[in-house]
């Protein structure tokens, strides 16, 4: 009790194991950005509201600004950096490109990770289901219309 000790963790990020000795208060978002220098995961609101920091943990989307790195110990985490296969874009990335699904781009990594989790659960979502699935992600540019089109593009692409 009260010994203020760090904790050894091993987290698989995009298929690669990363081990580190971390403070229990370190957030997963900070672990990704600062410990691993993977800055694709953005930190927006800091309070689980905006969704910019969304990653996929063991198959479920989660806001990594409200997950301690120690909670993800032993988990498989996928970040936006894990979507593309070399130079080949993931269908959701292609969708955002083709349908102009971003303006400033700040929310985009989180939007794409939520969309990927949505499409994993529901490969053929309706527009309403897409909007419901992305309810936890905020776009300050209010570019929702094209984001929905981007997800529909990805759904069509992944189906074929």
């Amino acid at each position, binding site marked *: 009790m009260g010994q203020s000790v760090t904790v050894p963790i091993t987290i698989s990020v995009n298929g690669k194991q990363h081990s580190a000795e971390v403070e229990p*208060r370190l957030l997963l978002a900070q672990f990704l950005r600062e410990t691993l220098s993977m800055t694709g995961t953005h930190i927006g609101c800091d309070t689980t509201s905006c969704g910019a920091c969304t990653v996929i943990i063991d198959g479920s989307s989660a806001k990594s600004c409200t997950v301690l790195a120690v909670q993800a110990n032993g988990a498989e985490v996928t970040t936006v950096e894990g979507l593309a296969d070399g130079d080949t874009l993931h269908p959701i990335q292609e969708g955002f490109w083709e349908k102009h699904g971003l303006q400033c781009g700040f929310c985009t990594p989180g939007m794409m990770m939520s969309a990927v989790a949505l499409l994993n659960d529901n490969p053929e979502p309706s527009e309403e289901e897409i909007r419901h699935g992305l309810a936890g992600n905020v776009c300050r540019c209010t570019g929702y219309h094209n984001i929905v089109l981007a997800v529909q593009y990805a759904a069509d692409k992944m189906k074929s």
Partner: protein
Amino acid sequence: MKWIDFEKPKTVEDAVKLLSDSGGNARPMAGGTDLIVQLRVGDPRVNADVVVDIKSIPELNELSYSSSKGLTIGAAVECYKIYGDANVNSHFSALNDSATLIGGTQIQGRASFGGNLCNAAPSGDSIPNMIAHGAVATIAGPSGTREVPVEDICTGPRQTLIGDDELLVSINFPSNGSGFGANYIRFIPRNEMDIAVAGVGASVTIEDGKFTSAKVSLASVAPTPLLVKEAGESLVGETVSEEAIQNAANLAKAAAKPISDMRGTADYRKHLCDVLTRRALNTAVERAQGAS
């Protein structure tokens, strides 16, 4: 965020020991979707030096159903597991009204009904629903376990009768027969991702066109989620009718003790209690009649 120590016990006994050894400075954590934010902003009501992660304790991750024992939801079971569960969908589908409403998808992957109850927000979206279902919480402490009806757990905003050395283990929902229906609805000024201005959980059991039991519970209109006993009791023995439901809604409105704040005035919230109670009861009746 200030320094915290992290513990991840594997048994209820070890968790209770960690909590009781810490002298009130430890907090259990399920998904952490409320606790981590509170620790980060330095909420004085959550002054934890030790966080006890309960995700490795089997009893707290149990989700089981039997017709004799009803539905048991471990305190750490995430919302997405609740709405993905076949037994919940067959026998307790109204719980999904809350499970699909709390936060967005990302929160539902981590947040639990147990955490929602222990966080004891007046607006906790699962709490009136649990109360309407007659749910009972199992709480473990240094001297054994005790069972407490969910409506008695919250004692004030962010306050519960669960001691610093106690741990919420699970929530049990008694089996309901044919003719049972329930519903939780809330009012928010947008479509998703907001805190209830007012919320109502309702359940009914109907036999031969008459209510044989009913419960009404309110959120966001008192310091705690509220069971309005008289509203439910007013329905028992009555024939299902608009008048009976309106009478129960009037009683719910009368029981509400809301404050005025940025989300709505007290008068507005009282009005919502009337409207939402009527709607929740009507949906519960529809579901009861569809199920029988």
